[in-house]
């Protein structure tokens, strides 16, 4: 009986019940981020910390390695995404699984896997060593670690974008005599451009935040393998004042925020008809 009486007001009550829970959660995420910014400004040495050699080296290395990782993801990932979206081939389900696996793997597992493959005693490492290619502890190892964990984000997103383009357009272009490569360049790519952009941003953001695989596979050396996340861990390991870690944290939060805004813009342009 009482249940029936309460029912009409249930719609109003939902907001009243949900809003505090939602607000608490927003605060849970926002408070640490604001605290980080507050501590950085409060220390009064943000500028000095940002221009220290440790921070500048880490920023430079992070920018270079994550950009190269992104370029490689685009170079190798775009054809793969196209094949996964448009072609049927034996073992496609397995390939799909392999490509997605690094997303759900703990990054430290990725690091160990890279080590036993490309390390000096690794399955391929020995042969690379004979060729004079020794990746362990080099900047190349950082790029490989970042590519391994971040490329799946690009491939997944771009694949979904390609799948969203109606095959009818390709059919029309083909009847007009366009070659498959030309169709890809002039029809599919422009139509799925927002997905390519979104995938690139996600991939770059993941590469920028990569820590676990890099620590295991590339080691930790300022200027060579110490990216921003590793520099933050390094501050803790060395027992130095937290100011430097906070300064690096602030930059990464700002970079992540900019990337997210770009992502939103890319998504918005996707909903707008682009032809």
């Amino acid at each position, binding site marked *: 009986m009482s249940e029936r009486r309460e029912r009409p007001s249930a719609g109003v009550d939902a907001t009243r019940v949900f809003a505090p829970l939602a607000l608490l959660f927003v605060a849970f995420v926002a408070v640490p981020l604001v605290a980080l910014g507050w501590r950085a400004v409060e220390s009064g040495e943000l500028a000095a910390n940002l221009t220290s050699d440790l921070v500048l080296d880490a920023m430079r290395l992070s920018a270079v390695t994550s950009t190269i990782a992104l370029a490689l993801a685009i170079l190798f990932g775009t054809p793969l995404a196209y094949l996964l979206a448009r072609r049927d081939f034996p073992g496609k389900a397995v390939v799909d699984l392999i490509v997605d696996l690094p997303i759900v793997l703990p990054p430290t597992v990725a690091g160990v896997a890279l*080590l036993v493959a490309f*390390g*000096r*005693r690794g399955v391929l490492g020995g042969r690379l060593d004979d060729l004079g290619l020794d990746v*362990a*502890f080099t900047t190349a190892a950082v790029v490989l670690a970042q590519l391994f964990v971040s490329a799946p984000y690009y491939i997944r997103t771009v694949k979904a974008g390609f799948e969203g383009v109606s095959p009818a357009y390709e059919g029309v272009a083909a009847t007009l005599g366009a070659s498959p490569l030309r169709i890809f360049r002039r029809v599919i790519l422009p139509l799925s451009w927002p997905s390519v952009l979104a995938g690139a941003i996600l991939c770059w953001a993941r590469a920028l935040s990569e820590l676990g695989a890099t620590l295991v596979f590339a*080691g*930790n*050396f*300022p200027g*060579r*393998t110490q990216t921003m996340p590793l520099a933050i*861990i*390094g501050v*803790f*390991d*060395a*027992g*130095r004042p937290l100011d430097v870690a906070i300064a690096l944290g602030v930059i990464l939060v700002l970079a992540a925020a900019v990337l997210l805004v770009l992502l939103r813009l890319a998504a918005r342009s996707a909903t707008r008809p682009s032809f």
Partner: protein
Amino acid sequence: MRFLLFLVLAGVAALLASCGGKDESAAPGAELSGRVTVFAAASLTDAFQEISAAFRAAHPRVEVVFNFGGSPTLRTQLEQGARADVFASADRQQMDIALRSGVVREPVAVFANNSLVVIAPKDNPGRISSLGDLRRGGLKLVLANPEVPAGAYARRALALMDADPAFGAGFSVAVLANVVSLESNVKQVVAKVELGEADAAIVYRTDVTPSLASKLVQIEISSRYNVVAEYPIAPTADAANLRLAQAFIDFVLSPAGQAALARYGFLPA
């Protein structure tokens, strides 16, 4: 309502009883119980695990929880409010900083000493047979961070070699130029060599544990250059059970604890 009152009274009674129990257990000789959390330098991992097993065998109602890591990492965690009862550092410096920042309390006791050794993978890809080989260009050496005790001791040993003309001019600069990774604790340094990724490293003698001995080559560092590492231990300032914390420390200093440390190659304090 009456039931609620009963519950509250029962709770208060239980609380009082437990307080009384605590007072009673503070008497010497009473049985120890509860949990002791020990923050210990990574180099103590194996020896402390054996000590903990013996300690628990003597006090069945005690639980020992470890957090092993680089001494500066542990000290930072304590300063940031991590809950622990005992801090065992691999050098004086980190213990002194912890004392100054008020996260540990006296008495600080030195419970072991350690020394350094050069290690290389069994197949010795860098063909290192003497200390002088460490300066050869193209080698991949791994050290611990300079702030980590093992890293600081290694650099001190290199500085002592540097002062000896036998090693040639610019020895330590040449050796440090070969360093490809700075690890956050000594066990990670050992892991890089064990995996064969690094050609050599300077670590504690005790890091070459029985299970690793067959995978590593050791090159002795003469006592002229070797550095004696002192391990201090102390209760934390906010130890939840100070008596238990002190009991663990006393056990480490006891003949049984010292024997366990000796089995893992530590030298007596």
